[in-house]
């Protein structure tokens, strides 16, 4: 019974990965090669960015960003409460801040203005 939420989250993650503009990342050439094999216009693919996301996906990204921020903070607070070793505490605090950075990344990307949406 527990596999359906996992599958749903995996599907959501795959949707997000497909929408992300991978041309800014190291994997760009791999994706471009794949699209070239598929006979698609790479320049058009490269222009796809988060700004082209549907409003539903953007709302989900905002929610994910908020949850990442809260999760990062909770990691820091729980580490402070549970850990006594200073090395482990440093590692978990830094990990919590890193999770928060992912949340901020999501929030910034999900708030890029849609094209031609200015009133």
């Amino acid at each position, binding site marked *: 019974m527990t596999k359906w939420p996992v599958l749903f989250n995996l599907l959501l993650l795959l949707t997000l990965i497909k929408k992300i503009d991978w041309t800014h990342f190291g994997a760009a050439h791999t994706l471009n090669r794949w699209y070239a094999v598929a006979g698609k216009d790479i320049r058009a693919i490269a222009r796809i960015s988060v*700004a082209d996301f549907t409003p539903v996906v953007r709302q989900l990204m905002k929610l994910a960003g*908020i949850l990442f*921020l*809260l999760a*990062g*903070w*909770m990691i*820091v607070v729980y580490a*402070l*409460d*549970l850990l006594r070793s*200073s090395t482990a*505490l*440093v590692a978990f*605090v*830094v990990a*919590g*801040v890193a999770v*928060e950075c992912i*949340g*901020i990344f999501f*929030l*910034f990307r999900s*708030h*890029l*203005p849609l*094209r*031609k949406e*200015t*009133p």
Partner: protein
Amino acid sequence: MIPGSVSVFSETPAGAICLVSILLVPLAMAGLALISCGLGRSRSAAHVILASLCAVSVAAIVYVVCGFSWDGFAGGPAHVLLLRGKPWNWIAAEPFFLRGIELDGSPASLAALLQMFGAGLAAIIPLSATMDRWRLSAICASTALLASCTYPIFAHWVWGGGWLAQVGDNFGLGRGFVDSGGASTIQVVGGLTALSMVWVLGPRRDKYSDEGMPTAIPGHSPVFVVFGCFLAWLGWLGLNSSGAILFSHALPGRVVLIAVNTTLSAASAGLMALVITRMRFGRPDASITANGWVGGLVASSAAPAFLNPAASLIIGIIAGVLVTYAVDWLEMWLKIDDPGGAIPVHALAGIWGLLAVGLFARLPGQNPASGQWLAQLIGIATLLGFVLPLAYSLNWLLDRVYPQRIEPDGERQGMDLHELGAGAYPEFVVHTDEFIQR
């Protein structure tokens, strides 16, 4: 009556200096309001200044009514959780309307006064990021949320004897999270609220072209901007001095060091911004230089009583570089329309100032390897992981029930005419759309 309050505190040298310093803090509000006004368009000038006054008024009233109840004062009544034998002080439990303290010059009453001004200062910060599109009534509603919820909770954790202030005693991390002048409680909270509001409201009309390129919409009065910097400087001297005496128990003689450090940090940050803009654009830019100056003031606020002047100089230089490049970066790449630079100046420079405490400050009774930087990092993680989601969620919910953005017609017409019925400069021809891309 809060235990430990000394009713004759204001008659001691420390109390007298503290009281006079607190009374300088409204000048910082005036300075920030003038800077916001000057960086905005002439057709919204009166709206910005009036909105600043309204924000300060609402913040002061709401803070006195209920904000201080959650904020409190170190040693006062609070809700404390005991986890694994360690106390976690989450929120104060003061009665409403400041009924738990005597307003007689005791440390508790001075803290309440300083924090009332602090709430007003934090409330003004988002206005400079959201000029030309935030309705006056929505500004008042959002400010009420800030002064009743976001600001007091975090201020209690830092200044009210909360869990962040106690991470030193409870977990052996230096002297706990240190922020004597409000770099986190006022500046970063205000800056993150500004970021939330920019996200909620979106960019100004025609700020970005269809291709996503930003349009330069220059401020209407560099004179206001630079004069605002002078006023903010005076206000910050008071803010840093009073905060250090009240919350870090600095001796009154330290006020000289605080003034030197505050000035050095602001001066180096402002000059750095001037030099960078001169090198990049061929001419120094007044607005970025002013942003650098205020960024230096913000970065100096974390622990000015415990830094040496050379460290303040370095902190200011780095703050100037950060602010100058972050303004461009936010506008060009992240499409954040922040006309007053509130996010880089208050949030980013504030976070840098907090980190710098862990790197440069020599706190009394502390050895250098005591984990102070980790305490500062925990405080920054709390700002990003708690304050930002809280401010964003509250303002997003408010926007759902009460739309905060002005109608498109109002934005086209200008906030002064649309909301106030009269322009700020009726005897002059008001510029309208000549800076807008056609």
